[in-house]
């Protein structure tokens, strides 16, 4: 294949004028840092992960070829794999739809033409820029069952608050609530999408007698679908990558309730040094994320509206 491709490329090259060739050389030269980076930081690790996933390997010894054994173990006899998958899926299901809807609602509010809106934009975006570790620590304290703000407020209205991160049933929802707190990040993206909608479309709709609701459903929402689509993919990938919260707050507990997939991967790879098995886990995550992305992309034709 490689040999077959070369003459074709050369004939391409021969047909070019000297100026074109010079431009092409400069172009390739400009791209060269990325090409090196692609080989070293992308192609090599992906291919290597694929190979390692077919081996048993603890980093200190040589990888031993075991074929598909890692995958067989993963799919047939690994309870931790099942619980990590369950926790992650549950987290995605709990946080993703809420984040998309609340982000859009917040963006609609922030898009109102009222003086001082900039201040609110800044305020709502702050949770999205601070680090996962700082946020986690802050929320451990915020949701403290005894002296935390939330349970204190609940106490004032006569409700006994739950143990949040330390309760088997509440730990996962607590992490989801924490991630929804960062909804301002999504709202800013929607806001950019909202501001790209041409005003004349609203004017036309108004002349045709469309009320506020109709304008939202018939103009705003359809024109915002590309943004929604982009955000859906980004959030989906992000939700599968949840890690810091499990590491800092719950250590995957209680009773594996927040044993997220990436946390499991981390423990297998860098605590237990089961590099072969961890590679198989990493590839599985890649396939899931790619699968979800392709699925969203394939079905997007039905609901994403493009102007052109």
């Amino acid at each position, binding site marked *: 294949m490689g040999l077959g491709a070369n003459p074709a490329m050369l004939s391409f090259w021969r047909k070019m004028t000297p100026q074109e060739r010079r431009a092409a050389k*400069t172009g390739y030269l400009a791209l060269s840092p990325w090409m090196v*980076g692609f080989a070293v930081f992308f192609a*090599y690790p992906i291919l290597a992960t694929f190979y390692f996933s077919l081996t048993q390997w603890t980093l200190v010894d040589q990888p031993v070829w075991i074929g598909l054994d890692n995958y067989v173990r993963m799919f047939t006899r690994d309870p931790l794999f099942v619980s990590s998958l369950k926790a992650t899926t549950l987290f995605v299901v709990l946080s993703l739809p809420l984040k998309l809807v609340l982000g859009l609602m917040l963006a609609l509010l922030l898009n109102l033409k009222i003086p001082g809106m900039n201040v609110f934009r800044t305020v709502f975006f702050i949770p999205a820029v601070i680090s996962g570790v700082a946020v986690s*620590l802050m929320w451990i304290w915020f949701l403290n069952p005894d002296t935390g703000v939330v349970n204190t407020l609940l106490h004032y209205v006569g409700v006994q608050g739950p143990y949040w991160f330390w309760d088997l049933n509440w730990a996962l929802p607590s992490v989801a609530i924490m991630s929804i707190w960062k909804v301002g990040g999504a709202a800013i993206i929607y806001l950019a999408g909202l501001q790209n909608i041409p005003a004349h479309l609203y004017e036309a709709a108004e002349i045709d007698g469309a009320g506020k609701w109709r304008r939202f459903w018939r103009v705003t929402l359809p024109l915002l679908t590309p943004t929604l689509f982009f955000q859906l993919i980004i959030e989906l990938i992000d939700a599968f990558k949840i890690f810091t919260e499990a590491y800092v707050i719950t250590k995957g507990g209680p009773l594996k309730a927040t044993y997220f997939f990436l946390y499991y991967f981390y423990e297998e790879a860098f605590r237990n040094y089961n590099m072969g098995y961890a590679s198989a886990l990493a590839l599985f995550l890649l396939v899931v994320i790619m699968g979800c992305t392709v699925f969203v992309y394939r079905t997007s034709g039905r609901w994403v509206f493009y102007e*052109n």
Partner: protein
Amino acid sequence: MKTDARALSIQRQLRRSAARRRYARLVGHALVYALMIFLALIFMLPIFWMASTSLKLPREIFAWPPEWIPSTPQWGNFAEAFGKYPLARYMLNSAILVIANIIGGLISVPIIAYGFARFEFPFKNALFLLMLSTMMVPGHIKLIPMFWLYSRLELIDTYWPLILPAYFGNPFFVFLMTQYIRTIPRDLDDAARIDGAGAWGILYRIIIPLSRPALTVVVVFTFVWVWNDFLEPIIFLRDWDSYPISVGLAFFQGRYSVEWHLFMGATLVSIIPILVVYFFAQKHLIGGLASIGIKG
């Protein structure tokens, strides 16, 4: 006479409805403000609680009912936190990593993006698509092979694993910068070429100075990502003294989990650089990000 009276009544009616509309708008504004302030207060509660705790006496932090605003703010807590934990050291480490990554981005991103935006060559679109598709792949899949490679090169426990990738062009930034450069009129390139500038002269004299909004995005995003990064430092660094602030904070928690007043102070201090950068950059960010134009 008759027509005059009618005109007058119409005028009066119009004036009344205008007044009513103005009144409705005022009420609408007030309602929106009330709602926004209410939401903002809820959103800020965790941060407020952290700040409040950081100013309390040790015995006040577990008091019930809790005090919202400590009666005598203990400003000395911050000094104590800095004395007790190597906070300054960790923040300095983070700053070193941030600066090294920013330099890498500012060097590599404009060059690569310039190649994509301004030159024609075989396979250009295929390469651009390839670069975009790498953005979809989660970075974690690369950790094991990279860890192996870095340990072979004896670079574990150095900053190289956390810095090097920035010098080879982050695909997201290259994409953003390429889109931005495409908005710069080519006439400017041609004018500079007539003045005798070569391909690289045009990059440094025309493209880079005009790309400030996009470069601001590179700087600010790099700052935020590197400052907040957690997973890579815990994998590639071993020595406590070399930890960035995110890792340092997370590891304190296990060790000194009772001193919440100092601990919340440290957490608060750790986010201040991010907040400062964010406040200063926000105006420029919108312009830089708008050029991506999330559309088909």
